[in-house]
């Protein structure tokens, strides 16, 4: 394909992905706003004042970056896993395989869809948080936006790998339910690991979600439990690794070609 054709093909696939989740906005964009509102009401407004300060911040203020990350990770992952598994299930993947689009462009299109939904959800949840904590001020806009995008890219790629291997709708629910959600909840969304006993603090440091959540908290609040250069390096490394795995799977046709 010539460069112009290739760019147009990528725009087409990206547009298709955006159209997909915007068409079903009640399922894709509204639930995180509702769930997060409930978190803010229960943990922020009702229980939060009893908890007091966390790392020197109001509890509701401390929760905001973690809850945004929780929503962003879930949105980016589930967008790609459900969309790509959906086209496999409906055989619409053949539309792409028959076309001259290179595999990296197909991956790029799906990641654009996941990132768009992840970032959109991040903004929605942040706007909801402002209703409950109007005086929130972002400490470092550059780092906040960088982590938002890196996280969305990383979990979009993970969602893609899950979709390639998935053979049923159960397979696309297993990882988010049994792996991602527990790791995120235990990754410092609701607490600082500084309040944990040493042994649990050390175990928590092995949880990659902790680095994602804390780097984002550093961007939004200027406070983190982990080293930011290490966390950014880890995220970049995972993105490179997951991209390589996705391209290998696409080139080999694993899960998509007989």
């Amino acid at each position, binding site marked *: 394909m010539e460069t112009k054709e290739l760019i147009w093909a990528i725009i087409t696939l990206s547009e298709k992905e955006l159209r997909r989740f915007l068409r079903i906005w009640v399922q894709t964009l509204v639930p995180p706003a509702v769930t997060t509102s409930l978190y803010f009401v229960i943990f922020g407004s009702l229980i939060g004042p009893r908890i007091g300060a966390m790392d020197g911040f109001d509890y509701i203020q401390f929760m905001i970056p973690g809850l945004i990350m929780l929503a962003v990770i879930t949105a980016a992952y589930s967008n790609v896993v459900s969309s790509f598994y959906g086209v496999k299930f*409906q055989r619409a993947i053949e539309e792409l395989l028959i076309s*001259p689009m290179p595999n990296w462009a197909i991956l790029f299109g799906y990641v654009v869809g996941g990132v768009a939904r992840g970032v959109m959800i991040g903004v929605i949840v942040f706007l909801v948080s402002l209703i409950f904590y109007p005086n929130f001020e972002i400490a470092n806009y550059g780092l906040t936006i960088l982590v938002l995008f890196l996280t969305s890219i990383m979990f979009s790629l993970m969602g893609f790998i899950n979709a390639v291997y998935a053979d049923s709708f159960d397979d696309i629910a297993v990882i988010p339910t049994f792996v991602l959600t527990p790791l995120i909840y235990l990754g410092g969304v609701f607490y600082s690991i500084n309040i944990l006993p040493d042994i649990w603090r050390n175990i928590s440091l092995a949880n990659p979600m902790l680095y994602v959540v804390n780097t984002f908290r550093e961007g939004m609040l200027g406070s983190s439990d982990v080293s930011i250069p290490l966390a950014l390096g880890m995220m970049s490394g995972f993105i490179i690794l997951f991209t390589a795995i996705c391209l290998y799977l696409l080139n080999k046709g694993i899960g998509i070609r007989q």
Partner: protein
Amino acid sequence: MSEYALEITGLKKVYDNDVEALKGIDLKITKGDFFALLGPNGAGKSSTIGIISSITNKTDGNIKIFGVDIDQNFPKAKSFLGVVAQEINFSQFEKVEDIVITQAGFYGIPKDIAKARCKNLLKKLSLWDKRQDQARNLSGGQKRRLMIAKALVHEPKLLILDEPTAGVDIELRREMWDFLSDINNKGTTIILTTHYLEEAEQHCNNIAIIDEGSIVEDTSMKELLSRLSIQSFVLDLEDEIQDLPDLPIFDLKSQDPKTLIATLTKDDDLNTLFDKLSEHGIKVKSMRNEQNRLEELFIRLVKEKDGN
């Protein structure tokens, strides 16, 4: 540039469950041909089409599309190709128009050009009124026609039709064939697989029959049909007859008092049969083939291969 639209050499496919679907087939299809690829279920047709269209990985062999080797420049080779798959393969929740325009986009065709082509195709395929409908609301026949529109929107030079008329009613089927014949006349090479053998006989110039992963016949339709040694005709009579006329040289059977089945060899003359029937006071009102001629040959070839 090659004189062939498609060249297949030594194509083999062994699936993970050790089923050998293709045993090294060779096939050449000239540019502009309307070619029938026939075979019983599980013969290897879908594997062949799947490999050409990159839905299936090949085990061995070579494929060139308009002279471009798929192992050397698959994107270029694929740009020549349009495929109407046997199974519905589009998102059922998208609008008809979006499906066609998006497919064009995957080939790098800008939206304004894609929209114009989409309009033209949907009108020709009687789907224009449905352009804003979700695909899942279309009937079976409409979905088949949408598949054709989708396969043609990038104006491929080689179109593969895998059972294109399944579920399409007679009137629309006729319209579809007129449309496809027109495309073929304008230079698009067409490969057809179908279970409606009369359609293959009517439209295709050349034919290959595949069975158990091997090509058992690869010739012109005319040549193949000329090999038919016997044909059966159904004769509808003007008046009822009580007994079969005694015509030693012809094989006649009575289906009912007003219908005869006459089986003729290549050397038999229909005029002689009519003369003899007239001598017995039997008038024939109309006549048709008992079975499609290609169907007879197809069954015979496949049976011969099976040793029956």
